[in-house]
């Protein structure tokens, strides 16, 4: 969603046209459920675990992961959302406008922060998110959960939890939405 909104609308140009549905609604629900199990397994429970969804595509996914975690473990994890616009490395090059206001209504010091996003691509958004987190506190560790890893990393960043590894071309676009995941391109 975030990627589609950011890249699929003017001034990036054109509109997104889906070509292939690579995950349907059930695939998506199962993948998110599995990532929730992996988060619990890796952290041996949910003590000190907090979830932070990246604006805007990661926010809905983080909400679903939080629901699954509560369902499996029977306890609520703190849930926040982070907009990284002011930490991006392309400010002044491309139009950067933030979307929703950051809301982290809890302390992240000495917590395990699980960043949640819909699509992992160049890694630049995650780089910005790591910088932003540093201004909110000092987590004990930061982990990364993404629904789709589409490759083409430009920075040494890797995810801890992946819904689906999806080989893509650079000119393609991945759209994660409530009914699944589509692969397509921008038509100008």
């Amino acid at each position: 969603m975030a990627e589609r909104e950011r890249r699929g609308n003017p001034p990036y140009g054109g509109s997104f046209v889906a070509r292939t549905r690579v995950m349907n609604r059930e695939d998506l629900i199962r993948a998110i459920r599995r990532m929730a199990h992996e988060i619990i397994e890796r952290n041996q429970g949910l003590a000190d675990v907090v979830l932070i969804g990246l604006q805007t595509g990661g926010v809905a996914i983080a909400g679903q992961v939080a629901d699954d975690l509560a369902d499996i473990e029977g306890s609520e994890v703190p849930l926040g959302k982070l907009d990284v616009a002011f930490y991006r490395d392309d400010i002044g090059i491309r139009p950067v406008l933030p979307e929703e206001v950051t809301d982290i209504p809890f302390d992240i010091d000495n917590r395990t922060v699980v960043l949640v996003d819909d699509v992992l691509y160049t890694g630049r958004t995650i780089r910005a998110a790591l910088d932003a987190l540093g201004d909110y506190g000092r987590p004990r560790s930061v982990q990364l959960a993404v629904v789709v890893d589409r490759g083409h990393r430009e920075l040494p960043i890797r995810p801890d939890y992946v819904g689906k590894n999806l080989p893509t071309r650079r000119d393609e676009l991945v759209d994660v939405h409530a009914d699944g995941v589509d692969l397509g391109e921008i038509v100008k």
Partner: protein
Amino acid sequence: MKDLLDIAPLGRAGIETLLDLTDHFVEVNARTIRKVPALRGRTIVSLFYEDSTRTRLSFETAAKRLGADVMTFSVSSSSVAKGESLRDTVKTIDAFGVDAFVVRHSSAGAPHMVARWTDASVVNGGDGWHAHPTQALLDAYTIRSRRGRLDGCRIAIVGDVLHSRVARSNVEAFGLLGAEITLVAPPTLLPPAVSTWPVRVAHHIDHVLDDIDVCYLLRMQLERQAQGLVPSLREYTSCFGLTADRHRRLGPEALVMHPGPLNRGVEISQEAADAPNSVITQQVAHGVSVRMAVLFRLLGSGQQIEAVSEDL
């Protein structure tokens, strides 16, 4: 958008984009670390030809919280004292390599001239009696944050409208956002063209008190009495001051606003200034966030900014 010189060219959509952006900087300013690296490596000059503490500090705080470098130019310690023209001063500073000028000047239109002489962005920090756009934006933001929206909001602007750039910019901004504005002033302190403005006019504060959501008091510049525009400050207060009694009549829901500095006991009473419905200190706090939004919008959003604003 290269410059912010005036409210009108922004239009309603442009104002709302800036107010939405301000929400993000209010969040930044509520953190322990009140700083983002958005304008790192950019240089912003405050070029103030008129005394101002709060506006200059507010802009400089905003610039620093965006990670920009700030140069301060004050007339008293510069070559302006040696007779250098505004144009030469701007050209000289421009040659250092700067990204934005924040200009305050006692002559209306000075920031517009500066904008023609430089490729850097120019923000009007107040020019003569003409305009003070960032004050209008922070006032609109303050009302919006308390009331949700300005549409249909009944706002009285009370005092020396004639000599007030704040009043001019606020009438434009509040009007574009759909508020109903009443100017309350003696005929000697209203501009001749007021009949062409989208406002109503009253000549006594008691005539509007029961029907307003916001009571915006302008500073009564004490030298106006010497010019014979008001008979006496006591008489001004008796007709236009928000006294304790009038403040009680206003009710707890109506907001009390003032651009500062306050003349307590003249246009505003102690009780009104410090009451729970007075948002005067919020105005100052929002000033930093609004100016961060303006600077970020001008310097931080890349070349294709117009395409974004059309889309919003």
